[in-house]
């Protein structure tokens, strides 16, 4: 059962000696700032835990068929994503400095054709989760039970109705290879009365809510068994100012 396997991040030899503490500096190569406001880093801790402790990936083999897949659906504000990809060895940190320039592979929205390790080109909201559902169905159709799919969305992104088509169908089709992480920085203009977790739970997902800055809690939530059903982790961070 893939969903109950304990995480086994690849310990590739080429892994550069970056730590969580380096991420601010790496982001600074793009933003020019030493320190970053919480609103610029809402995804940072979840991304770090995913890439440091959860995802079975190897930057030397970014297209390995047995890798875990990470889909950044919320493609905007990708500095934290690029910083983590650099820390994890997918991007040379020298590439960060020219970001968003005409010839840079790193734009305001990531393109899978330009950046190794980027699974899905995103930007327009509400496509990542539906595509991740298709990826999970593709893996199932190919008989591949090993790889897992993690998809990150934002709480405001959930406004897009296409996500709700995906939430319903992922559970009805029992896509247990799929985990969706919702970064909740309370930026949905009309809010989610009753909570985001319930939107998933009512459709039959395994769902939980954690502190989006607590690495141990994030790791525990991302590794919780969810046999036969997809899994949702709502990671709550500071409200967007």
């Amino acid at each position, binding site marked *: 059962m893939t969903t109950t396997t304990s995480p086994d991040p690849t310990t590739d030899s080429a892994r550069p000696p970056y730590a969580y503490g380096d991420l601010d500096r790496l982001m600074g190569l793009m933003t020019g700032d030493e320190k970053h406001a919480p609103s610029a880093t809402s995804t940072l801790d979840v991304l770090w835990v995913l890439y440091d402790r959860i995802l079975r990936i190897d930057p030397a083999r970014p297209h390995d068929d047995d890798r875990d897949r990470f889909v950044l659906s919320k493609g905007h504000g990708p500095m934290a994503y690029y910083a983590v990809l650099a820390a994890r060895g997918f991007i040379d940190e020298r590439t960060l400095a020219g970001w968003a320039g005409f010839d840079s592979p790193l734009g305001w929205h990531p393109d899978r054709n330009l950046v190794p390790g980027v699974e899905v080109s995103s930007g327009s909201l509400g496509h990542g989760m539906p595509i991740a559902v298709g990826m999970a169905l593709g893996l199932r159709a190919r008989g591949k039970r090993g790889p897992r799919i993690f998809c990150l969305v934002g709480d405001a992104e959930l406004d897009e109705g*296409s996500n709700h088509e995906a939430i319903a169908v992922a559970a009805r089709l029992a896509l247990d290879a799929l985990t969706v992480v919702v970064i909740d920085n309370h930026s949905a203009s009309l809010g989610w009365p009753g909570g985001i977790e319930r939107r998933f739970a009512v459709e039959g997902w395994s769902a939980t809510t954690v502190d989006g800055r607590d690495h141990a809690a994030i790791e525990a939530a991302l590794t919780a068994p969810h046999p036969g059903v997809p899994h949702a982790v709502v990671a709550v961070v500071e409200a967007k100012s």
Partner: protein
Amino acid sequence: MIRPSMRQRFVSVASELLDSDPRIAVVTADISAALFRDTGAARRHPQRVINVGIREALMVDVAAGMALEGMRPIAHSFAPFLIERSFEQVKLGFAHQGVGGVLVSTGASHDTGAYGRTHHGPGDVALVATLPGWRIHVPGHADEAEAVLRDAVAREEPGYVRLSERSNVEPVGYSDALTTVRQGGAAAPVVIAVGPMLDPAIKATQDIDATVLYATTVRPFDAAGLRAAMTGTDVVLVEPYLEGTSAAEVSAALSDRPHRLLSIGVPRVELRKYGTASDYDRAFGLNSAGLRERIGAWLAAAKATATAR
């Protein structure tokens, strides 16, 4: 007469392809899902025949996700829901990701006459044609639809196959190139008939000295074939969807030659009528009588202009 249905042929061919090629998947949003149960394909391949319910936006992105996993997905619904409703998914799910897939519509333009405007989709080809890298096919007969489907599925690039309830009596054959159906005399006008418009175009021009070319593939457009067929200056483009959809392709193909172009297709109007597809053809001047009148008047006016010079 009852002609073989392109939609039924699609279901039987896709069901056969599912049996022979493990990369093929079919994704539906209720439309035609029962037909894939009838062929047994849904039972034989439950992991590759996916019905997502009435969720067309999801259907297209699911197909894209399966393509990202190395599969060759076929997504299928009525043209307005597959293309118009889901257009951003079509735009971002395939060429932008760098993967392919095949979109197969049924219920072309006003095929579903009495359903009204909500179920009519004459803008489908024009919309898909705004995207880079897509092959667009408009078969005019079930046999051509089958050949198109087999070819589109075997390729890697994105493909759109527009199936219709309307059909020519006999197939010409599927080709990427324009096929000469009738050869006119020196400097004769060239009539390009697309898909199911061939039979009415042939009948409409039977008393006119014209070369008639037939197209089942409109993107990429066979510019070289048109240039080779042109011995005069006059081109008549007869398309079964939005009027002028391929006019820019014709103009580009002939950009260095003096030419005149008459574009015939579905006009931009809210007709607010029901009835049958034939009723719509009559109203839009797309049956043989309507085509004869428009083409004849245009050629006469063009001739008068030429004489006046």
